Each structure stands twice: as C-alpha cells, then as structure tokens.
C-alpha cells in the first residue's frame, strides 16, 4: 500500500516536472538539427551545427522570432548521426517524439535524408536538408513528392545539367570523358545527368571509366581516357579522389581541363592535389568570397577561429527558410510551417544586415517538387592556392 502511494506520488511529481518544462518552453521554438559530428564527414557536420548555434544566438540577441506579433526565443537541439543511415533514423525519431521539435534542419547526406523521409511524413514534421542533392530525397521513384521533405540546395540532375551546359556552351567543349565512382550514388547519378544533358546539347561522351571507392591507382583507367583524347574530363567525385586522379592524370601527360561538382570544395583539396588542379573548375553552391557570404564568413571566423565551410552556408539557408516560414505562417505548428515552406520565395542576401533573413547561396524559390527552382550555380576556378569565383549560372530546371 505504501509502495503504491509512493508510486502515485512519483507519477504526480513527474507530471508536475513535465508540466514545468513544458511551461518554461512556452516562449521557445525548438528546432532540430542532425548530421555527422564524428567520422569521415565530421568536419562538415560540425560546421553546420556551429552555424546553427551561432544563428540561434543572433536571432535571440535580436529579441527572438516574431510570430504573429509575439516574440519567441529559438532553441536548437542537435544530434550526431555519424553519417550513418540507421543512426539518422534514430535521431530523427528522437527529435520528433522526445524533443518535440517543430522542424528539422539537415541532414547533409542523401544517404541519411532518404530513409528519414517516411518518418517526417508520418509525424508531419518538416525537414529541410542542407546538401542532400539526390532527387530521391524529395521525390520518390514513382513520382510521389515526400510531403514533409525540403532542401536548400539544388539537385544532382540540375547540377549535371549546369555542368554540361557550361562545358558545351561557355567552354565550347565537344568531347567529354567521365571518371566516376561506380558504387557511390552521388557520383553515378551526377555522371548520368551530365552525360544526358551533354549529349542532348550535341556533345559526345567519348570515354567513361569507373572505379570503386577506396581505389588509389587510376593510371590504367586514365590511360584509356587519354587515348580517347577528350576536350574536357568530368569528375563527379569527392575531393580526396579528385586530388589523386588529378595528380595521376598529370603524371600521364593528360593536360585537359578537369571539371567537377560540389564534391570538390574542401580546404584540403588544393593541399592534396598540389598544382595538378591549376586552372580546373567545379560547380559550387555559392561564391565563398561574394558579398552575400561576407557578414557570416566574418562572424563565423571570429567566433570559431576557422573558415566557414560550404555546409555552414547551406545550414544557414535551411534555417533561414524555416524561420521565414514560421514568420509567414504566424504559427510554429509543424503543419503550418510545412504549408508556408511550400510558398518559400526568398531573394539572395545582399550582405547588408540581412544575414538572418535571406539565403546566402542564391535565390530560393521552392517548386512543386520541394526543391529550389532555377537556383544559381556558381562556377569556381582553382587559381594557385585559391578558389576563385568565375560566374554564376542558372539553368532552367
């Protein structure tokens, strides 16, 4: 009997505690984030979460977010998904059911974003992915749009099209070779879209060689590429492989222009590649040195003592999309945020005090597939130790 009373007392106490924490949070909007804070991609995951914390501090320092005339503080809850799809599912469930976040920013990898889509849909909590470029993140194979999945970046088909159009129209290249990672969906997908667009334009893919991840010796395959004598070599691979391939290509006397995608940008790329990539170009999500990025770049550097990565800016834009949706919806119920996200139309920041209100990586207008439509792609050229912006480019999608 006494035990039962104790039990009831404990339940009551627990209820009071839960009530209290709920009460204290009434003026707070909780936003979730997850990404890899450990493992191979930790650098980018940490860059994203650092950005989230920095921005939340800035929103709160400015008095919070205005929701229908009342100011609310923001809170970000972040978890490490270790770059693992199972872990991504676990932390998504935790963010939604335990932490009761109203929206989630992240993840960065398509491999993590695709499996969490059904969870977001079932629980009706919107997710804005940062750099997950695979089409399946927002649209399933049968064409169904995942209602609660959005992204701040452009997609691989779009990126492939931009790269092909750029190579064909601006650089006047007619014969392309492709060097791709066969067991990586990003690389395989991007190759396919590049090839499709390049051939539609009238170009020819004269050689396509593939390798499996972890490969270190590309000489045999590159010798084949050399024999096909292309005008340009498209390399939709990640920076470490890009550095190795580029060095070996130059060793074999392959002097053609190498062209890549958003797997290239990294502080390590040029250090690993030496001068093998001099003059080469890649498609990026933003111009690191542009006016739009300047205020955040400076603040991030001061706060964390290192350069903001590409993922910092993508996480920024994803959070700006969420905050904008909350303000337009005048509500922070997940379903209302989702409805407002559908009509997102945010012009790019100018660099003048609009770092908390406008995206940095380009005009974000969400289309019917929940992807930004006609988003600007930025062409970057490697010049000495620097990545120099060449021109921005928007293909019709």
């Amino acid at each position, binding site marked *: 009997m006494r035990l039962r009373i104790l039990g009831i007392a404990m339940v009551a106490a627990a209820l009071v505690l839960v009530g209290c924490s709920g009460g204290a949070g009434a003026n707070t909007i909780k936003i979730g984030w997850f990404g890899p804070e450990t493992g191979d991609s930790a650098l980018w995951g940490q860059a994203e979460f650092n950005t989230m914390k920095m921005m939340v501090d800035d929103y709160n320092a400015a008095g919070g977010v205005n929701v229908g005339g009342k100011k609310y503080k923001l809170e970000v809850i972040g978890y490490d998904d270790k770059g693992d799809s199972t872990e991504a599912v676990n932390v998504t469930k935790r963010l939604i059911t335990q932490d009761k976040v109203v929206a989630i920013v992240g993840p960065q990898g398509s491999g993590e974003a695709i499996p969490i889509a059904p969870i977001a849909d079932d629980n009706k909590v919107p997710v804005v992915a940062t750099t997950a470029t695979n089409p399946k993140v927002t649209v399933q194979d049968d064409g169904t749009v995942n209602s609660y999945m959005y992204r701040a970046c452009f997609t691989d088909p779009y990126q492939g099209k931009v790269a092909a159009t750029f190579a064909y129209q601006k650089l006047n290249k007619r014969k392309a070779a492709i060097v791709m990672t066969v067991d990586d969906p990003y690389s395989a997908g991007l190759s396919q879209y590049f090839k499709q667009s390049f051939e539609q334009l009238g170009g020819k893919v004269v050689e396509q060689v593939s390798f499996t991840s972890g490969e*270190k010796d590309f*000489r*045999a395959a590159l010798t084949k590429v050399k024999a096909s004598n292309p005008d340009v070599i498209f390399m939709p691979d990640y920076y470490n492989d890009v550095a190795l391939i580029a060095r*070996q290509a*130059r*060793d074999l006397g392959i002097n053609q222009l190498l062209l890549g995608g958003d797997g290239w940008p990294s502080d390590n790329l040029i250090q690993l590649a*030496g001068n*093998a990539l001099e003059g080469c170009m890649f498609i990026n999500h933003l111009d690191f040195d542009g006016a739009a990025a300047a205020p955040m770049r400076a603040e991030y550097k001061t706060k964390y003592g290192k350069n903001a990565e590409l993922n910092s800016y993508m996480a920024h834009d994803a959070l700006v999309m969420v905050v904008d949706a909350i303000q337009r919806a005048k509500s922070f119920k997940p379903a209302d945020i989702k409805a407002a996200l559908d009509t997102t139309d945010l012009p790019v920041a100018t660099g003048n005090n609009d770092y908390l209100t406008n995206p940095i990586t380009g005009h974000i207008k969400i289309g019917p597939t929940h992807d930004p439509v006609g988003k600007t792609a930025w062409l970057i050229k490697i010049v000495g130790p620097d990545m120099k912006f060449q021109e921005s480019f928007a293909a019709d999608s």
Partner: protein
Amino acid sequence: MNLFLQQLVNGLSIGSIYALMAVGYSLVYSIMNFSNFAHGSVIMLGAYFGYYAMTLLGLPFLGGAVAAALGSAGVAIILERLAYKPLRDRRAPFLYFIITAMGASMFIDNSVIATIGPTPKMYPNVFGQGPISIGHIDIGRVDLAMFIISAVALVALILFIDHTKLGKAIQATAYNMKASALMGISPSFVIILVFGIGGGLAGIAGILYGMKYQVFPQIGAITLKSFIAAVFGGLGSLPGALLGALLLGILETFVSGYLSSQYRDLIAFTLLIAMLVIRPSGIMGKNAEDKA
C-alpha cells in the same frame, strides 16, 4: 600498340611496389613459416616516417628513404621481440603467430588513427611534375623513380642473400633451422636480421607508395596484393615473389585498362584461389605444405 606499351609501363610500376612488399613477406615466411600480417602496418609506418622526415626535418628524398627504412626496420625488430619471440620461446602453434600478427597490425593502425588522424597526407613533390616521354610512352617521374629504387633494393637484397656469409646463414636457417643452429648459426640472430631486412624494405615500399599515392593509416591493406603475389610466385622464394609481383601488377593493369577496374580485384583473387588449387607451391616454390 602504344596503349599496350603504356599499360605495360603502368603495370611494371605497380608490380615493382608489390615486389618490395612481397619479398618482406617471403623472407619472414622462409624462416618462420608463417605469414606476417603485420607487414602492412610496418609499411604504413614507413610512409609516415618518410613523410615526417621530409616535411618536419626537411630532409631530401634520399634522407627520407633512409629514415623510413631505418624506422620501419626498427619497428619490425621491436615487433618481433615483443610479439613473436615470447611465442617462439613457448613453441606456440603457428596459428598463434598469425593471430598475434593480425592483432599487432590492428593495434598499430588504430594507434596511428588515434594520434595522427585519418586525414590523408601528401608528400612534397620532389621529382618535379609532368611525364617523361619516350617515343609515345609517358612515364610518370614517381613511377620511374619507384621502379629504379625497387630494382636497386631488390638486386642488392639478392646479392646479399647469395654472396655474403650473413646471406648464407639466412639460407641455411631457412633450409633447416635446427641443423644450422647446430653448425653455430644463432636462429635468434637470423630472425632479427630477417625482420630488419624485411622491415627496411617495407619502409622503402612505404615511402614510395606514399609518394605515388598518399599517406593514410590504411595503406597496409595493399599488402594483401603483395601476399597474393608472394603465394603466386611461391611463398618463401625470393625470385618467385619478384616474378609473382610483376606479373600481378601487369595483369591488374591490363584488366583495368582493357576491361574495367571493377573486375581487377575479382580477377586477382580468382588467380590466388586457382593457383592454390592447381599449384599450391606457386610458380617457383619448393615445398607444398604449410602455406598460410
């Protein structure tokens, strides 16, 4: 024809590095009769020794190579003293040696990941850039250097084994350890010598591999290939290891060059299995027992 010759050069370049690794395996196997699976980790450490000697200490390439060779030889000898000698003293079964070797390998690899980190490093470019063209064939400078250095090291090793007293001692011990001990050749000394030589070659292989590709903690995985080469040529036979390594390098390159690199490992391992089934002693091996 040009394409064929170019791929042949690519193949020889890879084969020569397999050879440096394979002779280390074979040497230890010929004396101890077990496959030293920690050999890959010693190669990996050699790559780091060379890298730091050249970047931190600013040594030229030859200095880096000497540092890598000495460092790796030291590690190999320490490994023998700490890990294998206690097993030998207790006359442990060979399986224990193999398991210990694997354990040591994991210990070394993970120590490097924990202390230096997993990010790949790139050697400074000491040979200059751009290919050396002979006719229509382009040879990478690193590849050429690698081939010459491997050849010099391997010829020196063969001369040493065949024409010096120490070399004869190794041969005698490999032939019959008990009998040669009775003739006054200390097995312990020969074993240290063999680990030292194998380690030294591993260090040179490490620095060359690091220059050709990158320095990273998983370099050791490549030794699986040199193991195939050693079995292919005949475990315990030095000329066999050499021949096996060059053949494997060329075969792999032709598979990648004319078929696709996806089939490369498939064919390399098929070759290993086929060789073990058809001729377990390899091309030049002597006894068919105890292949491990």
